[in-house]
């Protein structure tokens, strides 16, 4: 299967996959123990009013019909209205997406800055005592419950030492929204006070989020480096008399890049799953916290909107990663 047909195949399945996902979440939202009509109608609605709502929103129709109507709305870009904020889901998601994006990007940066050098080091010094120590450390990072780690960070840095804020994204209201990314917006506004506040707020959540991702990066980079060192081309060039150091660095740099790119899908998955928990612990006003809150409150429109949004993002990222991977190493594409 060549590159183009792989992409085409993925694109063809993009919509059915999302539809399937919606069907699952839709079914879940309709078997919840609480009547959605009661939730929409509000706390004091009479029985008749609940019935009116049921008819107006089509809750009285058979499930497949309801699902068809929902999908038709989604196709028109209408994800419905949140039961609790009374706002269109699209707007809610749009205002929260930048917060998650900012957190994720900072976490990826931290993971890469820590993970790649350590991974290269371990690969070059395989079976040294540092390699063994780092192996235990990385396995440990993947074994820590992120919510617990987050609480310990809060305990130490916020409660005991008082260096960093406990939670939230900024003190009070953000500067004028340009990009929605707090750090960038503060830079644009030239407001160092807000910039400092934003950085202090993002430190702990980003660190928590970066921890398992960094461990993953270390291990992939390490294995990649070992693969490069043992590869025939390195052996050949060594035989040709090139200094080993030069060869290693030349290949290692390329390899580190490839390893990061190929694992981006996996790392993104780790980060997105992590964001759900980390945002909840740190009151970070992003998509993850929104999803948890919506699920707990049975705000089914919001839950479906979130699932659709992350599902699309996830499928898209994996597609891009596969395309990149295929471009870098056409043999691996299948």
């Amino acid at each position: 299967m060549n590159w183009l047909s792989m992409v085409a195949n993925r694109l063809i399945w993009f919509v059915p996959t999302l539809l399937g996902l919606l069907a699952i979440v839709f079914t879940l939202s309709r078997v919840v123990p609480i009547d959605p009509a009661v939730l929409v109608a509000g706390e004091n609605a009479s029985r008749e009013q609940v019935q009116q709502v049921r008819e107006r929103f089509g809750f009285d129709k058979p499930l497949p019909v309801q699902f068809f109507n929902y999908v038709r709305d989604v196709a028109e870009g209408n994800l419905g209205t949140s039961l609790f904020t009374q706002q269109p889901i699209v707007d809610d998601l749009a205002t929260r997406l930048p917060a998650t994006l900012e957190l994720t990007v900072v976490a990826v940066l931290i993971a890469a800055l820590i993970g790649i050098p350590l991974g290269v080091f371990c690969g070059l010094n395989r079976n040294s005592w540092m390699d063994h120590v780092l192996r235990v450390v990385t396995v440990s990072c993947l074994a820590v419950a992120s919510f617990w780690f987050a609480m310990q960070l809060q305990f130490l840095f916020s409660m005991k030492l008082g260096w960093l804020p406990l939670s939230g994204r900024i003190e009070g209201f953000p500067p004028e929204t340009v990009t929605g990314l707090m750090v960038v917006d503060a830079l644009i506004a030239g407001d160092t006070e807000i910039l400092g506040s934003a950085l202090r707020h993002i430190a702990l959540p980003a660190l928590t989020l970066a921890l398992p991702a960094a461990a993953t990066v270390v291990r992939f980079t390490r294995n990649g480096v070992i693969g490069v060192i043992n590869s025939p081309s390195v052996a050949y060039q060594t035989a040709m008399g090139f200094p080993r150091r030069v060869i290693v660095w030349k290949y290692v740099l390329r390899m580190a890049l490839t390893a990061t790119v190929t694992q981006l899908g996996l790392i993104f998955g780790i980060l997105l799953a992590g964001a759900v928990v980390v945002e909840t612990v740190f009151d970070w006003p992003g998509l993850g916290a929104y999803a948890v809150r919506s699920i707990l409150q049975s705000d089914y429109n919001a839950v479906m909107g979130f699932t659709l949004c992350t599902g699309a993002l996830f499928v898209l990222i994996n597609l891009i990663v596969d395309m990149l991977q295929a471009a870098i190493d056409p043999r691996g594409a299948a």
Partner: protein
Amino acid sequence: MTTTRRDALKTVLGSVALSSVGWESASAQAGGKFVYANNSPYDNLDPHTIFDTARAATRFNLYDGLYRWVDNPPKMIPWLAESHTVSEDGKAYTFKLRKDAKFHDGKPVTAEDVVYSIERMIALKKGAASLYLDAIKPGTTKAPDAHTVVFNLVQPSAIFLTTVPDILVVNSALVKANEKSGDWAEPWLARNEAGSGSYALRRHDPAVGWTARRFPEHFAGWTGQPFDDLEFRTVLETNTRVLGLIRGDYQGADGYLPYDQIQRLRQSPNVQIIEQESMRVFILALNNSKPLMNNANFRRALAYAFDYDGFIANIMKGSVNRNPGPNPNNIWGTPAGLKGYSYDLDKAREELKKVTEPLRPITINALAGFSESEQAATLFQNTLRQIGVEVVVEVSPWSVVSGRMRNANTQADIVPLWKSTYYVDPNNWVGELYGTRYHGTRTFSYYSNPEFDKRLDRALVSGDQEERRKLYEEMTQMVNDDAAGIFVYNTKWYGPYSSKVEGIRFSPVSNGQDIRWASLKR
């Protein structure tokens, strides 16, 4: 009868006339910002659909009602309305509006706005609307002139006047301009403000909170050093609120923190704790309609099986007082010397022996995020097991619990929660909790007792204060004898504020969130 009714009204309004002066004269020296850390998100600012205490700050600071509750014990003072009269048949309430009140856009507050507001409330049927749905029909409220508004009730009501502060007035021209296809601008008012209140909204973000700027032209005038800027920020995590207060980042936070946190705050020089006996009763609401739960012997067994003293002494650390009945101790309507139930497992077993039907597992649905509710549930589960009653505990967020309470079949057997003050009358507690007429709306109990309902019907229309007192006392006694609910304590309000703030005016209705009275210490 009519004379006695007027007397009763006089007693309610006696304080109105007295307290209406004093803060209109001196001009204010303003400054400073008041940041309040709130425990739930301000996802909706609509004063007509939001009625819970957690999001009440918008109601008191951005909007005005006809009258207003202040102080403790609570008294009602004139606000947008200067006075009122009641017709002989007790059905028509005529309010005279003051002429100098303005909305934030400069438009004067008129009777038309009041009419639009009440119509909007009863049309949307959310929030405070349940107080009026039975009493006021659409289209019956009239504005004979710009400063007179007449409410024509379906039947006389003893509690209508106490609910008048909840008729918050919106700028009808502004709201109408934002209506879309008969939606009463519900989505728009969720994110915007159209009030005349002491503060005018500046920014709102459901994920962050809201800020407001002082409205200098507010009719009530300003004295002292009021705050120029308000910020009500959503800070979900208790620890963040507490640490923020200690550090001085926040000037105030909600006064119903767990007592462990209050003790921690007391040690900080930056924080003062204002202590008040509130009107917020912690109850284990029993769903009286379910099988087994509809057996009074079984309910009495339950009532004898809760460790009231242990709960208050250890989990509440003695910070509250036992409240033996549904009404808070500090309001009338409870018979003198009502003993309530005590923790006595032997008596519980005796009552249980009289239950002939087979036992079944009982569900307790605790409120997520309220550790006292959860701890009461687990503690109760433990003591009930000792008398042979199996219990399943479930924990759900308030929205889910309240959704389930809408229906007798879906409400759990037992729900540990608080009944707060919405209006200051025993009907807010014993009446709403146990009257059949409140099934599906404001009840937590699905209790049905024709004798009770007969008294309630009378108490709701009677204008005779002594008669009403007697009726509510009888109703309370019935609820007690039937063990229709389990009543634990009346909450003390420990309002944590910055030690630089003074003049916080607490009432059990506004819970210290009505910031216009507060000022910075000089």
